[in-house]
């Protein structure tokens, strides 16, 4: 269906546009790599599409303890930043596997988060990294952990009129992103797994493990995380964590993989992922 495309330059203008018409008739667009497909498949048929490209959502600051990524920053910018490559390997490894180079020039972190796909390659590392979202609306700003924000495919804690302003990710964090696909390049992962180790001073568990390809959305592997209590868990603990991860993950059979195969893969990926993180130079550098 035809639609009208708007380019607001202020948040006020954007909110005014987004409040028009019945729900679903006006949608915001960032990179558009998912939304346009969803419109092609008629999941959405908006009459008005509001481009966020001219709003001040491109902030990008790499600090000593945190990176703040504006929701409209293209993935390719992050992928090519050596500061992130060295200090947030889990995120950068995942970004490098999203679609093609052309797509990563368009696609944004904010868009990926709002899409909330269960097979997203970015949600597992972002959640494992304990990312925080800044959400902005007429009422002001609020901050929400990404883990609480994501509920299911296209389902999030986003309120009407609210926009994702930025994503804040702590760094440095040793970690990795592992995946399995039928076709290595430019495919959807059958299973994805982010493994991140946090410092003791960050509080909470030392390790966060988040899987994608799960149903109905990406899933934190809490029992596996609880098995990895120390900074350098033993091989036995890693094996046990892998086994628990495979047991606790909610998988289904679909056209991309059988449930049984996904469970098997997750077990392999957890073992390899944790072992690789332990061996990584960053893990040796960042201790305590």
């Amino acid at each position, binding site marked *: 269906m035809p639609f009208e495309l708007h380019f607001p330059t202020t948040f006020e203008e954007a909110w005014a546009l987004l409040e028009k018409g019945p729900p679903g008739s006006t949608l915001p667009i960032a990179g558009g790599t998912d939304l346009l497909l969803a419109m092609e498949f008629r999941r959405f048929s908006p009459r008005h599409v509001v481009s966020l490209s001219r709003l001040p959502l491109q902030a990008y600051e790499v600090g000593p303890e945190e990176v703040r990524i504006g929701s409209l920053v293209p993935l390719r910018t992050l992928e090519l930043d050596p500061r992130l490559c060295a200090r947030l390997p889990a995120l950068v490894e995942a970004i490098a596997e999203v679609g093609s180079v052309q797509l990563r020039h368009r696609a944004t972190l904010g868009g990926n988060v709002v899409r909330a796909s269960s097979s997203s390659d970015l949600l597992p590392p972002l959640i494992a990294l304990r990312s925080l979202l800044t959400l902005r609306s007429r009422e002001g700003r609020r901050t929400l952990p990404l883990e609480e924000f994501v509920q299911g495919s296209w389902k999030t804690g986003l309120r009407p009129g609210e926009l994702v302003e930025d994503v804040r990710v702590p760094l440095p964090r040793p970690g990795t992103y592992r995946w399995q696909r039928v076709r*290595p390049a430019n495919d959807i992962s059958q299973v994805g797994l982010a493994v991140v180790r946090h410092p003791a001073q960050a509080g909470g568990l030392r390790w966060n493990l988040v899987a994608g390809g799960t149903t109905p959305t990406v899933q934190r592997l809490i029992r596996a995380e609880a098995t990895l209590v120390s900074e350098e868990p033993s091989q036995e603990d890693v094996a046990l964590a892998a086994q628990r991860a495979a047991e606790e993950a909610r998988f289904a*059979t679909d*056209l*991309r993989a059988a*449930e049984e195969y996904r469970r098997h893969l997750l077990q*392999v990926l957890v073992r390899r992922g944790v072992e690789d993180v332990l061996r990584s130079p960053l893990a040796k550098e960042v201790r305590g």
Partner: protein
Amino acid sequence: MRRTDALPKARGALTYGADLAAPQMLWAAYATSVHPHARLRSLPVEEARAMPGVRAVLTAGDIPRVLPKRRWDPSRPLLVETECRFQGEPVAVVAAQSLVEARAAARFLQSKAEWEVLPAFTDLEKEFPEWPDVETMKRHERVNAHVLARRGDFERAVAEADLVHEETFRTPMVAQVPMEPHACLARVQGDDWHVQTTTQTPFGMREDIADKLHLPEAKVRVEGTWVGGGFGGKNEALLETHALLLSRLTDRPVRLSLSFREEFLFTRTTQPAIFRMATCVRDGKPFARRTRLLLDTGASLPGRDFALGYSLGFTLGPYRWDTWELEGYALRTHRAPFGPHRAPLAPQCTFASDGHMDSLARRLKVDPFQLRLEQVWRTGDRTPFGQEVPPFAAAAALEQARALEKEWRRGLAPGHGIGVGLGFWSTGTSMGGEAVLTLGPKGLTILQGEREIGSGSVVEGLRVIAAQATGLPEDAVEVVYGDTSTAPFDSGVFGSRTVIALGRAVEKGCEALLKELARRSDHSPGEAGEATPRPRTSRGKLRLDLQGGEVFVRSPRGTGPLLGYLTEEERNGGGLRAHGKEYGRSHELDSSGAVEGDLYAYSDLIAAVHLAEVRVDPDTGSVRVVRYAAFHDAGKVLDREGYRGQVEGGLVMGLGTALSEEGLITSEGRLQNAGLLDYRVPTIRDAPSDLRIIAIEGFPGSGPQGSKGVGEPPIIPVPATVANAVADATGSRVLELPLTPERVARALALISPGAPTGPAGPVTPAVRGRPK
């Protein structure tokens, strides 16, 4: 940049099917069946006709009144009348002022159509878990064709064998997936049924349209556009008939194109097959083979199956057998009709045939090269169908591959394996082609009726052939693309035949031009055409040259401008003209082995031996091709770069067949992955970086200078080669394509072997057999 179409294509300056437009044009869109098999109860045609912008809705019932003869060929239904035969079969076509309006009305029709769903037959495995007996099949209403051929008594061979090696191979639906979807623009004015379209075969399409619409061929005019890949999928008239009918109905030009989803559902392609292979061995030597093939030919109509009889021969491999038996059934199912697809079914046949040979070598614990070399056809042997083997480089290619394999095997990393695959092909040289050549003072033009589909065989190949035949630089040779009313007849771009057949026609035309110039040179130059006989001394030595933009003739008598050789009429008429024709030869076939159905003769035989090194992840089943080498029976390479491009492209396409491409259906028979998201063609990042192409010359074919076709052979051995390499790396053989990580994981027993509900389906355990 040498290819003349490269820069304009990169700039978007050439017209493809999807670029076609005309003033007053209407846009068309399809409403299709959403079920594989169902009876149409109602279709809200009148409501659709009243929708905004809609100018016409064409249904089956409207066709007779649109056609001049008021009838069409009922055996080839153009639209669903009462019962759909496959998911995606067109039910109605809408023409509207805009694409958005056309699609809206088509979607309305599709969603409001009422169907009575009928049982669909889409799964050969379920219908025939075992090889069916003859009596069952005689009564089975869905048998489209049956072929049985044999020499000797296979049952006796079984009794005499030390070992009978048996395996069942399975292959899925795979699609051509050209980058450019089908698209056409039709315009009917009076008696002129004119269609511009992206096609591999303008003349074949003209015949097809004329047949389907009961029109005289002379009233149908097909004009090809630049083609963004065909791979066999752009031969038949699919959209063109509908666009022509709508144009006739509305008196307006009508444009019709397919979405990628429709490409997967509605076009003709390769459908699943099950190969039951058995090979008898005595004293360590395989001497008898039997193939039993169940081929899903989709909704192909009886009598229109080309694949079964042609394919079966490839399952014997290019090998000598004392005894052989071939039997196959083509089954009419509720899938899209089977259609040509870069060496139709040959990669699948070779996966079965050569994979079977490879597993036999492993079972007998003999060198897989040696086993093949002892059996393989050599020039002068007889094929199973009694044909003398023309020059054939299979043994030479195997020897070269063996030498490289030794090199690779030294220091082979753990988890890696090397596989060899041998395939062969026979090009479609028996179909004809013609070209009209005009040699003028500035250069040579070739008027011909093929279209460039991407390989370079027309845009580059014909120029290279003419340049090499005459001595002119390629820049002085121009290829002109005619439509079916202006170009001489040609069968089209398929069967790896362009360079071999049309190229040979061009070469013959060049020879005729030089012969005529030589004749004139033997007379007094400057008095062309006038009869002043002189002794013949310059035969065969005459060449052309370009000097300062002018064509010169160089003969032993000296060099002079072409102008001096032309008659006044020729000077005024553009130049000296010659007509080159090549209609190939029909080959002899010993059909005494055929019990039922037809066997097909081979023409040129082309061998292809591939070597792959793979890395198999022992924990996940992932297969990565790390090195690849292709040894190809080239005859004679006419253009190194073009040759390399064809082989590389073909083998990367084959890697998709081997590793990732398959149409997946639901239990109701609906295609689940009609689109590029979950139907996985290889990307450039999936291609191995170490890729060697080795052309073996000296085994001449029937093309110009002894060349052989190269369009199809490169894809043929790829799935077998990769599967053989995986077997080498792991000791387990995957008997079903493609070798997805999940399927390999099942073969490696990382997970259970069968997944009745999973997408990968059951996998037959490694090697079965019954030692005697």
